[in-house]
């Protein structure tokens, strides 16, 4: 590699669309969530830089590591989660902004990377040696088992719709961003359920079962303090943009090359984010068994029906199915 390529790769990883850009977008999204929530409550809400203040403050505080905990895993888990979310965000932004240079199968890579933040939470929670964290960890594991199936089924619907449009299976993010499966019955069903899966992945109400501040006091995060808690906050902030971006890429047509496409992409991203916030503020927390039943026995069959519809639509050449 020449010096220029190395510099370019470093820029992509550390500035745009990697570390700096993803974190800045994430903190902005956290502020949007808190501000819109406050507006729904008829409150004024925090100033725009509030998430940044929170992270800075946590970076300046003492780190406490539980004596009985597994120290190495306890320290490494938030780093793993943050790194995973950053790679995911970089991959998704690159797939959207540079559709010309995809690598085949980066959709599958994105699905794998989306599981890393949850895995890191499970590791960190189980290394904390706290009963509350243990309950939170067990709930997080059950939640992952619940929504992963629905998310992958929803993705399959989008893939089948893509086969109808092109000759080969569009297994790259760039190709998926070029189509809008949401304008069909099966695509719309898959889109709605994938939004609910993202809600669960982000740990937002009604699926904040693993953190549940009011009953298990923060759950998986209960023992974390200082810079390590700041890393968790940053991870959740980056995911707050990356996961809606995944939904936008797969179902809503992603970002275009033109300025209008860019503006439309940002609009779609904010739309999905506001949808998530509205669901968050109008629903009470469900129990873990209710969440599992919901994803398996309600979303599962609905998605199977959507897959069947998409296959029929493809075989008969009916676009709106």
């Amino acid at each position, binding site marked *: 590699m020449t010096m220029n390529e190395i510099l370019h790769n470093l820029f992509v990883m550390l500035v745009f669309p990697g570390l700096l850009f993803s974190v800045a977008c994430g903190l902005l999204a956290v502020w949007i969530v808190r501000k819109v929530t406050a507006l729904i409550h008829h409150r004024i809400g925090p100033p725009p830089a509030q998430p940044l*203040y929170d992270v800075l*403050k946590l970076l300046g505080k003492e*780190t406490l590591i539980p004596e009985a905990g597994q120290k190495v895993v306890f320290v490494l888990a938030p780093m793993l989660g943050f790194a995973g979310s950053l790679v995911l965000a970089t991959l998704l932004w690159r797939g959207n902004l540079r559709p010309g240079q995809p690598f085949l199968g980066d959709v599958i890579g994105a699905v794998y990377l989306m599981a890393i933040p949850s895995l890191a939470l499970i590791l960190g929670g189980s290394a904390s040696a706290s009963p509350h964290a243990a309950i939170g960890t067990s709930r997080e594991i059950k939640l992952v088992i619940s929504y992963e199936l629905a998310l992958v089924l929803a993705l399959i619907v989008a893939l089948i719709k893509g086969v109808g449009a092109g000759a080969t299976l569009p297994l790259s993010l760039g190709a998926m961003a070029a189509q809008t499966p949401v304008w069909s019955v099966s695509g719309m069903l898959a889109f709605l359920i994938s939004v609910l899966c993202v809600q669960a992945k982000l740990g937002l109400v009604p699926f904040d079962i693993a953190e549940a501040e009011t009953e298990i006091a923060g759950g998986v995060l209960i*023992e*974390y303090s200082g810079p390590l808690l700041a890393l968790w906050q940053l991870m959740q902030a980056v995911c707050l943009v990356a996961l809606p971006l995944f939904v936008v890429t797969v179902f809503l047509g992603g970002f275009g090359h033109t300025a209008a496409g860019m503006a439309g992409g940002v609009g779609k991203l904010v739309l999905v984010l506001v949808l998530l916030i509205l669901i968050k503020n109008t629903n009470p927390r469900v129990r873990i068994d209710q969440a599992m039943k919901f994803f398996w026995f309600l979303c599962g069959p609905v998605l199977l029906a959507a897959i069947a519809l998409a296959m029929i639509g493809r075989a008969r050449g009916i676009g709106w199915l």
Partner: protein
Amino acid sequence: MSWKRWSLKRSPWVFHVNTGACNNCDIEVVDCLTPRFDVERFGIKLVGSPRHADALLVTGGVTRQAAPRLIRAYQQAPKPCVVFAIGACACDLGIFHSGYHMVGPVDKIIREVDPHAIIAYVPGCPPKPEAMISGVVRALAAL
């Protein structure tokens, strides 16, 4: 002013400890979060774990049962951490002054384990939400 203090003043997360209060102060603490007062404007957030806290809001005079728990909650909070004694009982035991079940006011218990602890007092029975917000502002200004 260092960046640590600067950011701490803009985002104090509070953990609520009830050491034997009659629940009156607790209701007023929660009142601060309502749309009328909305302390999230100043970055103040109620958290569920002392590990996440920058301030402990202690309500009630400290009973024998609660004293060791208060000490543990204080030790579990990462420093720097401000302790707020909310209400007459937490400041000076109030009407429970000669109660057999009381160990002492909040500052006495905290100073036993940390003589240099930062303690702020908000008297009242119960203190008004305005008084609590004013107490927090003054304590942060004194940091």
